[in-house]
């Protein structure tokens, strides 16, 4: 049944509606950065402590059932001699360069290119933890994310034929309340993992006192991995 609404009634309705909707529109939605209830998981790699032993790679391979010899993190050997190999920094077999290694893995960006370019939403952010992870059932294997990642930290898993990245062992360890496999297995405490939004967490306290850097900040992806570099003291 239709009726003609009088102007007066219409205006009353508009007035009442604006009184209700106006204040609702003005209520601010808290943005993510100030929301401390949501976790923001970070990993800290301390270059001062890493010896390049490679246990993290083995741990990763086992924990995530990856193909033989594959892992979601690598150690880049940047300087210092290793038995029988030339130093990557100075090229000599015997030198006094300090041994330095850098962890290479998914940087868990806050503004992740892989998530925005993925055509199916397979590369997505886990709603509960905010960790960038993969929905294997959605990935079509187009490799767009692999080209789009400024860190070249994604790969195709030969077993499943879909793209993969380090997701802090989200499904294999975190969901069981454990730390990521590489963090657990690191004998030298070179890897620290935790929620930076938790004021009592160790990572929060560590990063409050230690200088740390992020990789390739010019890409504006806001990575969640922090690196504590070896710093020479004195002149």
């Amino acid at each position: 049944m239709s009726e003609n609404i009088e102007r007066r009634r219409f205006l009353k309705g508009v007035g009442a509606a604006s009184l209700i909707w106006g204040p609702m529109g003005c209520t601010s939605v808290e943005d993510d950065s100030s929301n401390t209830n949501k976790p923001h998981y970070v990993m800290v790699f301390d270059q001062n402590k890493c010896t390049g032993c490679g246990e993290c790679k083995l741990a990763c391979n086992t924990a995530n059932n990856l193909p033989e010899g594959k892992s979601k993190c690598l150690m880049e050997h940047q300087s210092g001699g290793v038995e029988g190999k030339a130093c990557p920094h100075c090229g000599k077999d015997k030198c006094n360069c300090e041994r330095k290694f850098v962890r290479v893995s998914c940087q868990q960006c806050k503004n992740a290119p892989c998530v925005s370019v993925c055509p199916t939403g397979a590369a997505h952010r886990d709603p509960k933890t905010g960790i960038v992870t993969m929905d294997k059932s959605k990935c079509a294997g187009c490799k767009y994310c692999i080209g789009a990642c400024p860190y070249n930290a994604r790969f195709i898993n030969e077993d499943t034929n879909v793209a993969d990245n380090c997701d802090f062992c989200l499904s294999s360890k975190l969901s069981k309340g454990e730390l990521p496999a590489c963090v657990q297995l690191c004998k030298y405490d070179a890897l620290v993992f935790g929620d930076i939004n938790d004021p009592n967490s160790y990572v929060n306290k560590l990063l409050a006192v230690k200088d740390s850097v992020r990789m390739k900040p010019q890409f504006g992806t806001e990575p969640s991995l922090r690196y504590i570099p070896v710093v020479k003291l004195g002149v």
Partner: protein
Amino acid sequence: MDGSMEFTMGLSKGIAWPWPIAVYLFLAGISGGALVVALALRFIKCQTANTPLYKAAALISFVTISLGMLCLVLDLTNPMFFWRILVFYNLTSVMSLGVIALCAYIPLTAVLCLYAFEDDIKAIKGLSILLPLISMLKPIRRPLELLTLILAMSVCAYTGFLISALIRFPLINTAVLPALFIASGISAGAAASKMVSVLVFKEDLHSSELKLLHGAEWPIMITEILFIVMIAMSLATGNEGAQSAFSAFTSGVWANLFWVGVVGVGFLGPILLNFATGRTFSHSAKAFYLSGVCVISGMMCLRLFILYAGQTYGI
């Protein structure tokens, strides 16, 4: 302190997108370009008949985009996963937006083929099932053609936007890329349509339509050259990463492909064939086909160069 540490290794070896993607970019460019040319001419000249050029463009656009889809599917890590791209969408992804555009564009190229070959379909008994469909679609021919024109442009541009989202590669991550791909798509699409219209649909080599296209060829080519110069200059005068990517133009196998394939065959070839030869030769069928093949080969080289050289020089 940010930036005081770097790593150079990666988890993926080689390049993410190999040659089938370059072939797809090439085919999608030709498909879109051919239709842009044919439909623009149709609207400008208020044509109502199915001209040989229109037929050629409709046929080319449908065949090339279908082959292009084949390239895309075969390049997936597992081609059987292709349905996922059609079922799941992510509107922040250029690829996903492209899929939406292609889902409308590919059927439309088929519809344009129905329009173009209506008489031929009538003549073949086995295809009579298509006749009711044609008569149903006939009243909306003009709006559909307009929509196809817009989508053809979009498909050309989208291939540029698609790869310019790869932020780690300075040669690829440029705003000019979509424009360059539209320009080169139009020039190669026009060349392909011209050749097929003469070869298959018996268009006269010196008809008014082809004359118009011969004339339009040069401004389009100049535009293309301008866009390539823009990309090269922005790299040469850019920051450290851009400067290192500039060596794509100066050294290595991809520089050779660029200077021989893109510049030599694609630009100098047609220019020399048309302006450096005698009047009789430059107006002959031989020169016409040679020049067309040069333009199309040059465009394929351009796509290969952009994709391979682009992904070779990352930062």
